């Protein structure tokens, strides 16, 4: 898959994983497991990128005698998800057009 496309998809996936409630690294990996295998290093890079872009904020919460980082989606993050839905609406209609051409040729 095109690397830029994949990068954009992964960003939105991680945002979606923290959309309904704040989540932490391992939980995000587990939530995404049925859809895609995400390594720790990749997740770290994505989280860092989203944090720099102000799409999420991080806070440390005490958990079982240690600190755990929780990620919280921001307004910009929610907007990114909405933009993604709009963009993919367009892409899907193009996809339908492309596959329709295929059917016609058969």
């Amino acid at each position, binding site marked *: 898959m095109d690397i830029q496309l994949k990068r954009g998809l992964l960003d939105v996936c991680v945002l979606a994983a923290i959309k309904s409630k704040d989540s932490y*690294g*391992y939980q995000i990996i587990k939530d995404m497991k049925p859809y895609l295998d995400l390594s*720790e290093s990749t997740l*770290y*890079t994505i989280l860092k990128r989203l944090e720099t872009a102000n799409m999420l904020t991080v806070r440390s919460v005490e958990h079982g005698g*240690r*600190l*755990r980082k929780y990620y919280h989606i921001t307004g910009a993050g929610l907007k990114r998800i909405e933009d993604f839905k709009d963009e993919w609406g367009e892409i899907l209609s193009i996809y339908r057009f492309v596959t329709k051409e295929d059917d016609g040729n058969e």
Partner: protein
Amino acid sequence: MNKQEFLDRLRNGLSGMPREDIEERLIFYSEMIDDRMEEGLSEAEAVGAIGTVDDVISQILTDTPLTRLVKEKIKPGRSMRPWEIVLLVLGFPVWLPLLIAAFAVILAVYIVVWSVVISLWAVEVSLWAGALGGVISAFTAQGNGLSGIAMFSIGLCCAGLSIFLFFGCKAVTKGTLKLTKRAALWFKSLFVGKEAA
């Protein structure tokens, strides 16, 4: 391997990267291991689930821009002494051309490698042109049956060779891409992990 060993090896392997980057990553991996252990995995299993230290390091290097590594490497650990600054300024006519030359050599090697790939594709295209030309001239060589047959067979030979070469070209292109990626990784690895040795 237990968690502490994993984190120590990771720290050594990443030395040379910005300190705050290393600390933040170690906290991240430590949390990942703790969360897995909380779920019932043994320490060794939790560490194993993360992957080998070498894999983790090479992935981190791939994700880290070269400029960040270089910036950290050339950042002096202490403030420079006056004579060092004087030497740096006076030596400027010497070290700058050397630096430029070094980069030029690297760039040249890179271009040469890709030239080979491009030439192979050029041969591939010419073989196809030859095949097409051979077949066309076989039909246009009226009145001279023998040379027509010769042209036709040369065209077929070209076509055959080009099919063979196509796979070669593809493999070479793929290989070169892979090599480029590995070379970039190797170059980046020069900037980290040296303090561990």
